């Protein structure tokens, strides 16, 4: 009998260390670089905010930005999207060092990890290039789908080669990416749209989430509570990012995450074109329309597309509502994790409630990394001069890019580990799709009602101010 080798460090703490070091490294790079004198107008002039940016004499910049990138969009040849190969190599080097060190720390073999990781990274790059082809990109079919597809294609034909196995570390990539995502959540954004924004984003969303979960458990009687929760969060909060965070918080299976992401991407691609047309038929006020779109559509990309199809005001309100809703990811992941370890996961035979120590033992600790990163960036944003510039330099320059790569590697890994038959099992009977459709119907109704109530009845002057731009 061989004793099971216990890793020296748990994956959650490893993700906190990797994600945390990347966040701290990015912040340190921006701080050490200092504020650089600007010789050209800031980027936001292009978007019409002249008065703010032309006054600036010095802005924060990230020296890491030229060395970290994702493939760009292309039309005729994939090479058009790979114009900065050194920046892709920069990401490869960073991820090899960080994850390689992490694997060593947890007692894994670096020499077995590296060859597999290079192939997983290559597959991730191909998935990214596929997503950036203009016809695919403009339809909102993001890299998660193609990463999953490439992985599935390999695992369901020749099977994932043995050399890849040590590098298939889905959980580690996702959790590290989520810690990096925390760095993109600024607490001050909660008040961006005053009380109407908070009510639309932070009242409707939890109500829809809880009701959909209840509906799935009690009415549809979905076998897997975690699948139910991931679909509910994906649909009510903000699509793929929320699905990833919630799946980790409730320990959902990889196939369950893939199912939720697949359903969400398919419905969002349709809804982002249907909703603006429905809004035109209903002749809605642009502010109410924007708030409805922002509160309902799953992904930020789809929200922007649908909002801009209505007009500039609707576009601005839609992305602002979505941004406030995005902030719920941490709260939802924390709440789901606590609910899961204290209620769902507890030993079914035991009637004794788990004590605080037991809850802490089971709690997915990476969420603390997410919250910590958010608190740190929010603190620095409030204390440093030109905090907005600082935030943009850190996020746009490095953490956002690395977060997207972590998620891309995770979806390649999920595909490589997934059997088509296991995936088909979740679609059988149509319960997962029914849950999504029912939840989204409720979301559409409540978001519209709340947007109308807020901007027509309670804060009509706010709608007038926004419409007057």
């Amino acid at each position, binding site marked *: 009998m061989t004793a099971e080798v216990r890793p020296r460090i748990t994956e959650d703490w490893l993700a906190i260390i990797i994600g945390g070091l990347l966040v701290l490294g990015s912040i340190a790079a921006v701080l050490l670089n200092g504020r650089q004198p600007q010789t050209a107008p800031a980027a936001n002039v292009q978007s019409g905010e002249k008065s703010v940016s032309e006054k600036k004499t010095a802005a924060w910049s990230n020296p890491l930005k030229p060395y970290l990138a994702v493939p760009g969009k292309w039309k005729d040849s994939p090479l058009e999207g790979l114009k900065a190969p050194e920046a892709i190599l920069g990401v490869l080097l960073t991820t090899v060092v960080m994850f390689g060190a992490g694997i060593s720390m947890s007692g894994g073999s670096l020499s077995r990890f590296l060859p597999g990781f290079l192939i997983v990274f290559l597959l991730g790059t191909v998935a990214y290039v596929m997503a950036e082809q203009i016809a695919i990109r403009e339809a909102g079919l993001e890299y998660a789908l193609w990463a999953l597809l490439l992985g599935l294609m390999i695992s369901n034909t020749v099977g994932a080669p043995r050399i890849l196995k040590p590098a298939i570390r889905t959980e580690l990539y996702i959790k590290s990416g989520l810690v990096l995502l925390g760095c993109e959540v600024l607490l001050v954004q909660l008040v961006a749209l*005053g009380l109407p*924004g908070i009510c639309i984003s932070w009242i409707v969303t939890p109500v829809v989430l809880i009701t959909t979960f209840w509906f799935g458990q009690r009415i549809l009687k979905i076998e897997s509570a975690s699948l139910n929760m991931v679909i509910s969060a994906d649909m009510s909060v903000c699509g793929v990012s929320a699905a990833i965070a919630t799946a980790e918080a409730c320990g959902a299976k990889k196939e369950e995450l893939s199912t939720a992401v697949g359903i969400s991407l398919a419905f969002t691609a349709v809804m982002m074109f249907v909703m603006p047309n429905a809004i035109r038929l209903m002749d809605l006020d642009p502010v109410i329309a924007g708030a409805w779109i922002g509160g309902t559509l799953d992904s930020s990309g789809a929200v922007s597309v649908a909002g801009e199809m209505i007009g500039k005001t609707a576009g601005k309100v839609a992305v602002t509502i979505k941004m406030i809703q995005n902030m719920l990811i941490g709260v939802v992941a924390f709440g789901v994790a606590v609910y899961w370890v204290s209620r769902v996961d507890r030993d079914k035979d035991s009637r004794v409630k788990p004590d605080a120590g037991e809850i802490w033992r089971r709690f997915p600790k990476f969420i603390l990394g997410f919250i910590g990163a958010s608190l740190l960036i929010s603190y620095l944003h409030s204390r440093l001069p030109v905090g907005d510039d600082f935030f943009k330099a850190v996020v746009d320059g490095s953490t956002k890019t690395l977060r997207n790569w972590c998620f891309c590697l995770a979806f390649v890994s999920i595909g490589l580990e997934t059997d088509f038959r296991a995936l088909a099992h979740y679609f059988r009977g149509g319960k997962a799709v029914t849950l999504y459709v029912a939840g989204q119907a409720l979301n559409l109704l409540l978001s519209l009602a709340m947007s109308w109530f807020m901007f027509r009845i309670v804060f009509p002057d706010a709608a007038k101010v926004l419409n007057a731009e």
Partner: protein
Amino acid sequence: MQSERLANQRLRLSIGVGLLLLIWLVVLPRISQLPMVEQWAAFLDDRGVNPNAKFFTDQPAAFVKSRQVMQRAREHAKAFWEPVWRTEN
């Protein structure tokens, strides 16, 4: 028997890869040249919209747009924080 199965698996993978190459290198570039697709891409580019964005920070123009809204909300704090029945009194 096993080598036949392996050959079959490799054939399926090759067909899949071939199909992807055909779609991405031949079909999609042609679709991208359709006037409708070009106009749509230009419309989104003009507005700084990335339809593939997962999070709001993935949107090139989202930060600026939300800041403009935030600025308006700050300038007209009463309109955004006090219900209409309180401002009427």
